[in-house]
């Protein structure tokens, strides 16, 4: 707090304001401490324990869960699965939605209808989305093989299955990204383009020199939240890929492993170690994303 402000308010006033401020933040801070801060500490503790059946008789086993984790061949595979999903899903989804947003950002008929349709997956329960796609992907009775006259093992061939999951991920996020980007595009003043046109920059040229830089804060926001979201992938592979399929190994994400160990196999301690590990990975990635921010994001 600087000197100027101190002079402006009397100390009692300041105290009163501070009191009110504490009251205002209290529900949120207390809530966060109970709901989030304490769980982080507890999970951290659990990750050093072997949990008994039904969560009873936890015994401290030191670093064993972490040692197991680094020996577990499923972990590197899960990391690969998660990263390649994130890479494909985020890039394709953003590229496509950018194209869509640019195409829709003009005076023409039907913009509202397109927007409404592309946004539709956002309001659907993920379970419903996963079910209908699983059914469409079915090798024997699904509409995709019927439509194309093929006999592709969409969800059971490891080479294809993870791409199918990514396709569903892209399909689900396209509308959301498009709406955000459209919002960003509409904030760009028209005279920028007019000025550029005088300088002879039109079309593709204007897109890269005006649109992208001015859209960069929105793009950055979408990329960052998109990557973090994609790294937490769980619902889609869990519901689309059958457990008795060899493809399950190529789609099992880190969160999927966490869920399996914690809730299906009753190994909460190991599950906690997985999620702590994941937290570290996501923090590192977030750190690097933040570092790139200054290089290409232009805030006005």
């Amino acid at each position, binding site marked *: 707090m600087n000197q100027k*402000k101190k002079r402006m308010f009397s100390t009692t006033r300041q105290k009163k304001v501070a009191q*009110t401020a504490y009251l205002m933040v209290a529900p949120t801070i207390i809530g966060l401490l109970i709901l989030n801060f304490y769980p982080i500490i*507890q*999970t951290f503790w659990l990750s050093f324990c072997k949990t008994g059946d039904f969560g009873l008789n936890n015994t401290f086993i030191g670093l064993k869960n972490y040692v197991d984790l680094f020996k577990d061949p499923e972990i590197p595979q899960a990391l690969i699965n998660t990263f390649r999903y994130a890479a494909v899903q985020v890039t394709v989804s953003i590229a496509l939605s950018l194209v869509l947003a640019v195409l829709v950002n003009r005076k023409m008929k039907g913009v509202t209808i397109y927007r409404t349709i592309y946004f539709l997956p956002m309001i659907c329960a*993920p379970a419903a989305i996963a*079910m209908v796609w699983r059914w469409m992907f079915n090798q024997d009775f699904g509409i995709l093989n019927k439509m194309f006259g093929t006999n592709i093992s969409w969800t059971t061939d490891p080479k294809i299955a993870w791409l199918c999951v990514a396709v569903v991920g892209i399909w689900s996020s396209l509308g959301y990204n498009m709406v*955000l980007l459209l919002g960003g595009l509409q904030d760009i003043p028209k005279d920028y383009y007019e000025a550029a046109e005088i300088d002879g920059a039109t079309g593709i040229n204007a897109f890269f020199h005006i649109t992208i830089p001015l859209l960069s804060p929105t793009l950055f926001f979408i990329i960052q939240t998109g990557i973090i979201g994609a790294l937490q992938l769980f619902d889609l592979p869990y519901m689309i890929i059958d457990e008795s399929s060899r493809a399950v190994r190529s789609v099992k994400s880190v969160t999927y492993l*966490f869920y399996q160990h*914690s809730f299906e196999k009753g190994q909460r301690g190991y599950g906690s170690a997985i999620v702590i590990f994941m937290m570290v990975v996501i923090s590192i990635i977030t750190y690097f994303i933040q570092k790139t921010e200054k290089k290409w994001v232009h805030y006005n």
Partner: protein
Amino acid sequence: MGYTAKRRLNSTVIHVFLILGAIAMLIPFVWMVLTAFKTKSQAISVDPFYIFPAGKWHFENFSEVWNSYNFMTLYANTLIVMVLRVVCAVLTATMAGYAFGRLEFPGKGILFSIVLIQMMVPSQIFIIPQYLMISKAHLLNTKFALVFPGIVTAFGTYLFKQSFQSLPKELEEAAEIDGCTVWQRFAFIMMPLTRSAIVSLGIFTALFAYKDMMWPMIVANKPAATTLSAALAKLQGQFGSNYPQIMAGALMAILPMLILYLIFQKQFIEGIASSGTKL
């Protein structure tokens, strides 16, 4: 080629592209509806392949699923959870966001870092401890359990901090001279100005509450206590490969939200869009 002709051609190409995309977006929904009205043997018939239900449309899939799941309860539960979460989130986040955005007090930085930490950490980390809290308090299968993780929101607090900060100082200074207390300034002058942020947070919270599957699956395992998303996840197992009934269930689960969305689509989309420019 003249300028207008070129423009028209351009816009036709664009429309074709957008329409093809729209069809691709809609196919899953269409297939969901078509399958829901078939019999099981039509759905798994290889030869001939039925695109439309043969003969009549079979509404009994809906009644079968409706009867084995108490959909009215599920709708009610989901709605209650959505409303409670939105109310809690907006109440706590506006207050905290205002304090962080516009008031000066010792320890502000440290307290705000608690908010930031929550946003950085993957949400899965909270599930087991939160679950243990609920189960130790014997609150499993209650509405409170379903609302519990959403009572406060770090995302919302951040959103409102940004949004209060962007408002001009003069507004409040005038009110202060008139002798308004901090609470009065917050409730009557500043909060109404953040309407668009309230709409954004409301939509995000409601959508999240509606879509969240893992939490309700874990804390509410009784059919009368759970939400649509979690019940739907079980449906697939229950009806095995009876695809028409699965699709009928999925359709019934998304229908209420779909109707709400189609009515309020403008507010929906603008609410989402405005959040992007704030963060």
